[in-house]
């Protein structure tokens, strides 16, 4: 049977570390059941980073709209795969954002690029008035 864990957090920047460290803990739990921990450190780090970027993006876009929302994170376990879904109520967006032009030295905007690179699969779809960003990675 597959398992899942869901947490809901205020969409505030002070909860980014809590969200990303929770992701790291959940990823650690999965690898502890499958592979030696020393071989899974990159996997754990990648989930910590992906949730950090995704949560930060959701908060920043809500701040632009001057709204405070609750963000829901669901971790779905499969035997050798972890999927994390982040639900927010921001406006629609696409994950196919252009790569920042590095020669302009942009001091940000790398979040989605990082998520796409460190995860195996990333999708975003609209569910009513919510976005669901789905990120998965296999061991």
């Amino acid at each position, binding site marked *: 049977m597959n398992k899942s864990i869901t947490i809901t957090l205020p969409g505030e920047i002070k909860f980014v570390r809590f969200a990303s460290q929770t992701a790291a803990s959940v990823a650690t739990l999965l690898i502890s059941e499958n592979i030696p921990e020393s071989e899974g450190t990159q996997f754990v780090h990648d989930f910590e980073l992906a949730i950090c970027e995704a949560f930060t993006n959701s908060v920043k876009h809500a701040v632009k709209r001057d709204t405070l929302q609750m963000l829901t994170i669901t971790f779905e376990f499969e035997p050798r795969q972890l999927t994390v879904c982040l639900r927010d109520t921001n406006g629609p967006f696409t994950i196919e954002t252009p*790569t920042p032009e590095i020669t302009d*030295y942009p*001091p*940000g905007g*790398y*979040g989605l690029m990082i998520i796409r690179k460190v995860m195996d699969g990333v999708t975003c779809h609209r569910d009513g008035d919510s976005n669901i960003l789905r990120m998965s990675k296999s061991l």
Partner: protein
Amino acid sequence: MIITETSKGDIAILAPDGKLDHDSAPEIRQNRSIIDPDKMVVIDLEKVDFIDDSGLGAIICALRNKRNANGVTVLSGMNHRLRIIFEITNIHKLFNIFDDVAPTIEYLETRQIERT
């Protein structure tokens, strides 16, 4: 985040320790040696175990500040995980990156001599 700062002449060596993220990035952005146009800066990332978009942004701001003042920012000591993040975002192309602090300082001292 703790940032240990040492100096050698006009070279400031900043060694942040911990996570370089949204919480800690302002400490890099607002660091006096980064703002000071007369300082060359080494950011020693050896003890940084995590960097996100905000942390990358802080390091790019340091680079921009220095370049606008004809100054220099170089990086040293980043671990494999950080290097991957720099490479997938192409930010590594903006910097001179050294494995250790010692050759970094040698490089900057050479540049200092060339400038005088």
